[in-house]
């Protein structure tokens, strides 16, 4: 692979009159650089792995065969109790609906906040052009703090339950969607906005009629994607005491043996939900971006 271009004897210089020689020389040099980079990459990977291995409590290689032990245990127990699964599905359905509700409300609130913030932070559209950096940094801040941190703080203040989860996810969603929305709005055609300005429309009217119809398909597509992410986030927040299916999952996992059938049912429900939302949003996005099929 490595093609060494230097040696004991100086190599023949490429003849500029022969372009094919010069090109071959170029290819050879590129290949050599590629080879050197590859060697460095492999060396870094190996040394990094050894460092991590030396700091690890167990041993990676000897632990490797155990990797499948836990899932195997869970699955075999679930298989043994497979007759009870339909009953378990019905039992966990209410908490699954709670989780989805938390995600939906949070996505809606976050998207509404993101709409306003993104328009205020977009060059050429902003109501107060000088305040653009303020809104940008605000969105950066909202995005930087993980949901779980906001949720933990809010649990101390408001106590457990769905409300802190909704607030935590909505704040993060507002920051994340705001940035994406702003990037879409930046590419919006300004001609309709100018036309509306010329009739004396207010900023709100200009945005509502001139910008939002243009960006709506892309915005909705991003929002549906975010909804899917938020279902997962809402399930995770159940672990820290927000209720929903995450709470059930935590209890089932902590209990250990004897409740593994519940773990499997919960995972299956989450998987199905996310697949379902993904299918729906795929179809909706296609319809929005490409237009209704006749």
């Amino acid at each position, binding site marked *: 692979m490595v093609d060494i271009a230097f040696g004991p004897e100086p190599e023949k210089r490429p003849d500029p009159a022969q372009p094919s020689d010069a090109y071959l020389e170029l290819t050879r040099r590129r290949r050599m650089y590629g080879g050197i980079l590859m060697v460095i990459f492999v060396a870094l990977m190996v040394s990094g792995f050894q460092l991590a291995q030396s700091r690890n409590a167990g041993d990676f290689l000897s632990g490797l065969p155990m990797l499948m032990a836990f899932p195997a245990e869970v699955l075999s127990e679930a298989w043994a109790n497979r007759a009870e699964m339909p009953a378990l599905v019905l039992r966990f359905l209410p908490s699954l609906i709670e989780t989805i509700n938390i995600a939906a409300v949070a996505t809606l609130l976050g998207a509404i906040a993101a709409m306003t913030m993104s328009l205020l932070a977009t060059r050429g559209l902003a109501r107060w052009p000088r305040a653009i950096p303020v809104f940008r940094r605000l969105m950066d801040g909202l995005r930087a703090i993980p949901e779980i941190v906001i949720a933990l703080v809010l649990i101390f203040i408001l106590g457990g339950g769905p409300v802190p989860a909704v607030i935590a996810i909505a704040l993060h969603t507002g920051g994340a969607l705001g940035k994406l929305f702003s990037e879409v709005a930046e590419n919006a*055609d300004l*001609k*309709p906005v*100018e*036309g*509306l*300005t*010329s*009739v*004396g*429309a*207010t900023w*709100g*009217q200009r945005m*509502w*009629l*001139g910008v939002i*119809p*243009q960006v709506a398909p892309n915005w909705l597509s991003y929002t549906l994607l975010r909804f899917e992410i938020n279902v997962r986030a809402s399930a995770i927040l159940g672990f820290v005491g927000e209720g929903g299916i995450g709470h059930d999952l935590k209890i089932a996992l902590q209990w250990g043996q004897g409740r593994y059938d519940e773990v499997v049912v919960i995972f299956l429900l989450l998987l199905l939900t996310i697949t379902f939302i993904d299918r729906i949003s795929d179809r909706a996005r296609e319809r929005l971006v490409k237009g209704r099929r006749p």
Partner: protein
Amino acid sequence: MLEVKSVTRMFGQKAAVDRASFRIDGPAFVGIIGRSGAGKSTFLRMMNRLVDASSGEILVDGCNVLALKGREARAWQSQCAMIFQQFNLVPRMDVASNVLHGILNRRSTLQTMFNHWPRADILRALEILDRLGIAEQAPKRAEALSGGQQQRVAIARALMQDPRIILADEPIASLDPMNAQVVMDTLKRINVEDGRMVIANLHTLDTARRYCDRVIGMRDGRIVFDGTPDQLSTGVARDIYGADASFNESATSTAIPADAAADKDWAAQMLA
């Protein structure tokens, strides 16, 4: 009625419009001509308050519209309609909605969000579309219309504003000769029938001669000509455009020739 007093707009060190002054009494059809970059567009944009002036005054019935701010500036914009070269409609909305946008200044943002328009206004919008001969297009999306039709929708939006002054920034520059004539005839009709002042930036001299009561020539931001269309001789046009003797306006004229000189030549050639 309209008095422009040494209006100036600076872009950096360069003056796009340099101490422009003129006066218009009564509802005239005024054409502004000049080459690209002469400051025609900037001037109209300043009048409509899309661009702020650096200095000067524009007095409309004694009120300096350049000093208005916020709500009052928007109220002025609603009285001073603007028509753009690229139409500037909302492409995804239907034609009637685009016309209704003309009264946005009178509607609150909340009413706009819920798409609530008074019945009387909807009927008036349809009436205006009918007057401009595009009533059957009302439910179509604006983007589905041809350029000439879109420009007529833009004129309908301007009429919906019930404006005192209509500003037209190169209204026919992206239209074919037939549609250009329809649009210019419409503007002239509004000028004559409704008695509204029309100020149009034009880039063809024959259009300016045919439709305008008065022509203002701009060059490098200054007004270099202000007179009737009859006074606009080829020599004057050369001065306005900064062209030399090789300038020949018929070379780029979009008018459909009315004379039969070519036919006569052809007949003579065949008979010879």
